C-alpha cells in the first residue's frame, strides 16, 4: 500500500500529512474530517497516507521500546515525504516528537526520526503558531468549557491557542472550569490497569465540568475525551463532549461522544 497522494499539491501550499490517530480513526471520524477542513482553511494541501496506523504510545509507555521503535519506523516511512505532519492529538503528536529517543543507537533512523519530530505538530497549535490562523468561520451557540489535556499542555505548551480560536466562534461562550490543568485520569493503559484510581480522577474532572454549568466540554485529545464522556454518560448528565476541532470546523452538529446516534447532540 502506498502513501496515496489524493490531491495534487498546489505550488506554495505546504503538503501536510494528516496523522489521524487510531482513536479518531476508529471512534470519531468526524475529528479527522474537521482536521482536514481546518487545514484546508489554513491553505494547506492535505493528504492522508493509507499506511498509517498507531503512533506507538501503548508500547512506549509500557516499556516495550523495541515494539515502539517498530511502529515508529512504520510511521516515519509513511510520513517523511511531507512538509508537515499534523496530528489532532497532543499526546500522539508528543509521541512522534519523542521518536528520536527510540533510536539512540541507530544513527540512520535517529536522523530520520529527528527530521520527523521537527515537522510534527498538534493540529490546533499548527493552525495558530505555524499557519498564523487567528479566527475560524464557525458558529456554535452553546456554553462550553475546555479541558487542557496534559501532554498537549505540558509537552507542547498548548494552552491559549484553542481558546484564541474558540473566541472567534460565533455564539460560543467559554466558561473555564476549576482545575482545567489537572489530569482526567485516562493515561493510556493506566485507566484499565488502575481503574479505581482512574475512576476517582475522572469523577473529580466530571464534577469540575458540571460545576461550570456548561452544556459542552471540549478538549484536544480523544483519549481524555472518551474517558470524560464515559464518566459524564454514567452520571447521566446533560453535558456533551466534542473534540475542539469539530467545533472550530463547524461540524459539531453530530451527536457528541457517547450520545445516542441521531440525537444531534441534544440533551439525552
Amino acid at each position, binding site marked *: 500500500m502506498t502513501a496515496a497522494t489524493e490531491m495534487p499539491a498546489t505550488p506554495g501550499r505546504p503538503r501536510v500529512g494528516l496523522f489521524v490517530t487510531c482513536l479518531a480513526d476508529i471512534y470519531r471520524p468526524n475529528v479527522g474530517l474537521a482536521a482536514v477542513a481546518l487545514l484546508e482553511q489554513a491553505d494547506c494541501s492535505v493528504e492522508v497516507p493509507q499506511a498509517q496506523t498507531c503512533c506507538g504510545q501503548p508500547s512506549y509507555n509500557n516499556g516495550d521500546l523495541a515494539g515502539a521503535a517498530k511502529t515508529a519506523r512504520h510511521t516515519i516511512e509513511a510520513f517523511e515525504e511531507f512538509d508537515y505532519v499534523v496530528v489532532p492529538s497532543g499526546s500522539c503528536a508528543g509521541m512522534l516528537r519523542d521518536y528520536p529517543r527510540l533510536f539512540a543507537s541507530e544513527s540512520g533512523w535517529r536522523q530520520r526520526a529527528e527530521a520527523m519530530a521537527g515537522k510534527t505538530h498538534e493540529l490546533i497549535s499548527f493552525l495558530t503558531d505555524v499557519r498564523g490562523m487567528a479566527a475560524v468561520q464557525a458558529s456554535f451557540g452553546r456554553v462550553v468549557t475546555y479541558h487542557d489535556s496534559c501532554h498537549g499542555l505540558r509537552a507542547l505548551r498548548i494552552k491559549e491557542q484553542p481558546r484564541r480560536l474558540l473566541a472567534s466562534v460565533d455564539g460560543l461562550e467559554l466558561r473555564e472550569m476549576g482545575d482545567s490543568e489537572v489530569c482526567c485520569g485516562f493515561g493510556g*493503559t493506566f485507566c484499565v490497569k488502575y481503574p479505581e484510581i482512574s475512576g476517582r480522577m475522572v469523577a473529580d474532572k466530571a464534577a469540575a465540568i458540571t460545576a461550570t454549568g456548561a452544556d459542552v466540554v471540549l478538549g484536544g485529545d480523544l483519549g481524555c475525551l472518551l474517558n470524560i464522556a464515559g*464518566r459524564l454518560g454514567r452520571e447521566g448528565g446533560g453535558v456533551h463532549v466534542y473534540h475542539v476541532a469539530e467545533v472550530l470546523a463547524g461540524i459539531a452538529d453530530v451527536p457528541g461522544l457517547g450520545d445516542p446516534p441521531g440525537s444531534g447532540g441534544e440533551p439525552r
Partner: protein
Amino acid sequence: MQPLSHAFKERSVQALQDETLQVALNRAKDGFAVKRARAVDGLPEFDALRDRAVAIRNHTLEHLDHYLERYADAVERSGGRVHWASSAEDARRIVVDICRAAGARMITKGKSMVGEEVGVNDALEEAGFEVVETDLGEYIIQLAHEPPSHIIVPAVHKTRGQIADLFHENHQKYGLHRKLSEVPEMVNEARQVLRAKYLAADVGITGANFLIAETGTNVIVTNEGNGDLTCSLPRVHIVTAGIEKVVPTAEDATTLLRLLARSATGQDLTTYTTFSTGPKRSGDTDGPDEYHVVLVDSGRSSMLADDFREMLRCIRCGACMNHCPVYGAIGGHAYGWVYPGPMGSVLTPLSVGLKEAGNLPNACTLNGHCAEVCPVRIPLPDLLRTLRHREYQLRLGLKPLRWGLAAWVWFTSHPRIYRLGTRVQARMLALLAGRKGRFTRMPLAGSWFKGGRDLPAPQGETFMAVWKRRQRERKQ
C-alpha cells in the same frame, strides 16, 4: 522498613474507600499547590534559580567522591566524626552503637526521611532506648505507630479528630484527661510534653537538608524549631544523611534553600534554618559534646552509575506529590514504603526492587505535572518510563498486557489487516451499542467499567473509510 509496595493495588483501593482518609486528603488537596504557585509568582528569577540549582546538583554528583571527602575532612576538623554506612543495616548499627557508647537512655529525633528509610527508630527501640519524634507530624504518627504518608507533612493523612483521639489515648500519663478540639490546644499539648523530653534527652538525631562540603556544616529546615532543640540540647548530636545531600559551598546551599521552601510549603523561607558545625567548642555556651554524621549510601552510588542519576538531584521538597493527582487520590501509605508519590515511585523500585514495587512506576498517567514543578527539574515521567522498560525487559509485568502489546505492534505494522480490523471493530461496536450510543458494560473490557464510567461507541465508519469514499467522490 519492610516494604508493602507489592500490595499497592489493594492498598490504593482501600485508600479510595477510606472516608476519613479522603476527608484529610481533600482538605490538603489544593493548599500546597496554590501556595507554591503564589511563592513562585512572587519570585521572577525562580526559573533561573532552578537552572542554577540543577547545575549545582549535577556538578556535585559528577564529583561526589571529591565533595564527600572534602565534607568529611571538614567535619573531622571541626571535631566531629563521620561514619560511612553502605547499607541500611550498617546505618542502624552505627547509630545504635553511638547511642550505647554515649550511655544514652532518651533520644530525641528531628524529622529525617533517611532515618525512616533505614528504620532507625525500630532499631533503637529494639535496643532498649526511648525514642521521641519532635516534629509535630512525626510525633503524631509515632503515637499512631504509622509511617509518614508525605515527606514533608508526615501526618497529612490524619484528620483533626483522629489527632485529638491520639492525644487523648497517649497523653493520659502526662495528665491530659479531656479531649482536645482546637489545633492550637493540640500544638500546645505536644509542646509541653516534648519540652521535657528535649531536656531529658542524651542524644539528638536529625536529618540533613544539605551538607556543606567547604565547612562541614549540616543544614536543616523546620517550622517548629524542634530541630534546633534536638541538635543543641542533648550531649550527643547524630546527623543521618544520604550521601547525595552534600553541596560544595554555603552559597550553593542558600541557592537551594531559596527553592526548597517555596517548592515545599510555598514559604519564602522556613521559620527556622539551622546550621550546625561540629560539637561545642571551648567557650561556646551550648551545643553537644559529640557530633556524629552517618552518611548513608544504601543504593545511592548504584543510582549514580545508572540511568537514574538525575533522581539524586532531589532535594525532598514534596512538590511532585503535592501536584500528583494519583497521590492526591490515594495518599502516601498506598505506595507501601517510605517515599510516596512520583519521587517515591522512582526511588522505591530502585531501593526495594521492581519485583516488590513494579506497580509504582505504572500507577502514573504520565501527565507531567510533577516534572513541571520539580525545583531541580528531575524528568520524573521519563524515569518512570525507564523503570517500565526495565520491568518489561525483566518480564515482570502482567503477561496479558505483554501479549496484547505484541499483538498490537504486529497489527500496526500490517496496515491492510489493520484497516480491515479497525473497520470491522468500529462497525461492530456501533451496531452493538445501538440506540444508546455507549456501553455500560462489555465482556473482556471490565476494567474500563470498574472505573465507574460508560464507554462511548464509535460513530460507525472509520475515518480512513470515510476519507477513501470522499476521495473517490471528489474524483468523479
